[in-house]
């Protein structure tokens, strides 16, 4: 993004090759073949199997299953918490990236490394740590318990766990863009009389918006699929704090494979639609810039 002037890397086009055009980049056939093979093996095949399993229920069965309050409730919790958590990650991730890039303080490198912790930590460990911390007798939970607020074992806990796992995605996508931003653009805005807030909102923010939406999308996707940390911090009550991945596991434990596949397929369609939507939005923002 910051290198808007730079040309795209030379691309080897399959259609060009089929029309007999020559390219200096070798190995198009081989690399394309391997890519498609691996993609099929790891992504398309299992997905197709799942959709096939779900299809055994028939349309009537599918609608009947998916319309139950428990399934609808789980989707509401999953989508709502993931969206809210991704939004929170976007705001605080931007702030963290900003501080890491723009300020120099002792321990900055350590703080920078700690951002990756949610990537590396087994999510179940994170879940146990968070639920202990936010339990009514935990360090943080006890602070809000007198006001009648419970965090662990409620839907708020789910939101906090999803924020925890989503945060690094935002920081790591915004950070490089902030790093590469020329100070001169801000100086130019300053010389033209813009105040600090105007410089941020009119010069800096539009420049990092594409990377911020990318980070948001990744955090959101991660939140939808998160399982390990949530099952520890949530009470997992059907319809209240039960998430979709857990519901699928429950179906499997009852040997209802078709039901699990049906819920999984719906989840797949929803996530795909959401991610496509975000990507379209991003492309819209970018195309404005490059005509």
């Amino acid at each position, binding site marked *: 993004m910051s290198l808007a002037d730079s040309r795209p890397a030379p691309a080897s086009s399959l259609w060009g090759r089929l029309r007999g055009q020559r390219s200096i980049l070798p190995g198009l056939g081989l690399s394309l073949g391997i890519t498609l093979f691996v993609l099929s093996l790891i992504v398309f095949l299992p997905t197709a199997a799942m959709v096939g399993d779900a299809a055994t229920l028939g349309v009537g069965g599918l609608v009947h299953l998916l319309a139950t309050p428990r399934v609808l409730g789980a989707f509401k919790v999953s989508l709502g918490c993931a969206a809210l958590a991704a939004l929170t990650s976007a705001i605080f991730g931007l702030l963290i990236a900003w501080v890491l890039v723009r300020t120099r303080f002792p321990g900055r490198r350590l703080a920078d490394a700690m951002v990756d912790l949610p990537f590396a930590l087994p999510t179940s460990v994170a879940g146990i740590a968070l639920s202990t911390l936010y339990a009514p007798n935990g360090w943080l939970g006890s602070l809000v318990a007198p006001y009648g607020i419970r965090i662990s074992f409620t839907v708020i806990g789910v939101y906090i766990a999803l924020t925890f796992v989503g945060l690094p995605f935002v920081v790591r996508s915004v950070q490089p863009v902030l790093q590469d931003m020329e100070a001169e653009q801000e100086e130019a805005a300053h010389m033209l*009389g813009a105040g600090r807030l105007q410089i941020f909102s009119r010069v800096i923010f539009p420049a990092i918006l594409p990377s911020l939406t990318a980070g948001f999308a990744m955090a959101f996707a991660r939140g939808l699929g998160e399982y390990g940390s949530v099952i520890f911090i949530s009470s997992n009550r059907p319809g209240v704090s039960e998430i979709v991945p857990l519901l699928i596991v429950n179906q499997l434990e009852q040997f209802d494979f078709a039901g699990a596949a049906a819920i999984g397929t719906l989840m797949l369609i929803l996530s795909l639609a959401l991610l496509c939507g975000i990507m379209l939005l991003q492309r819209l923002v970018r195309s404005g810039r490059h*005509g």
Partner: protein
Amino acid sequence: MAGHVSIRDVSRRFGAFTALDAVSLDIPAGELVALLGPSGSGKTTLLRIIAGLDFPDTGQVLINGEDNVARHPRERGVGFVFQHYALFRHMTVAGNVAFGLQVRPRGLRPSKAEIKARVAALLDLVQLGWLADRYPSELSGGQRQRVALARALAIEPRLLLLDEPFGALDTKVRKELGQWLRNLHHDQAITSLLVTHDQEEALELADRIVLMSQGRVEQIGTPAELYTKPASPFVLEFLGEANRIAGVVGEGGLVRVAGTGDAVAQSIDPGHALAAAGQAVTLYVRPHDLLLEARADGAAVVRSVKVAGAFAKIEVVLADQVLTALTPLHRLPSLHLQEGSRARLVVAQGMSFPTQGAGGSLQFAAPRSFAMA
């Protein structure tokens, strides 16, 4: 109203490096002044301090008598053009130019229609009206810099600061844009300060040149003054090439080349202390002021003859010194000089500078006996 800039004893250090060393300077209102110097001479630091993008450790910058540091950039009325344009990439050309007007507080902000009209007028001024809806990434370097200029002019500055504005452009575009800037400067009531390391650009464009070196001002003057009356060898050598000829002052102020008997120049300030007989001097002579005459008994030997455009460049060896002479191409055949031929050397005009700070510089010309062809 154009701004008068007064710089008083400004110093700036970066750690152990002194970027500016007690610089004092006055820039009269309405002039186009070039800050010229090699890289690291402090010219950009000075420009940034005048702009308020950097702050002096000591000293003051006054614009029309008012201290610049304490004021908001909006009230300073200073436009700044960056070497690498610094255009806002996510805004159109028109959006970039309008920026300075749009960020004004509500009371001072022109109406939308007025902004639109102003932007259109400015884009016409820089001859880019047809590109108003494009994005910076779709423009060439010269076009981008013109957008940057229009953007800086939108806030109606009293003072326009340009930091190597043509440094990233190729020679032809640089020259065109330079001339265009010069005309623009004349049409607007504005003081312009241009940082450059290109002496040719400074000589061509500026009303006045401030030549800087190692954080100090070496000399201030019109291009002609700096070129013909340089205050130091540094100024002389920075503004174009020069030969150094080691010589000895003889009787009547005649300078002979050290190690040979050839008289090459004569002092035209006779009676000056430096011209005392027997004194060693270093003569600084521009290549086009070095005249060659083919002679079998000449002390100089031609090393090479190269044709470079309108001029021929002749290198000669004289008493172990390699000297360069430039002669108009049409005169080359009449000189009868080839590689290895011997020549007599005469200085049409040259200068020497005092070695120990005693007295001023000395001017030299061809000895009277030398008949100019």
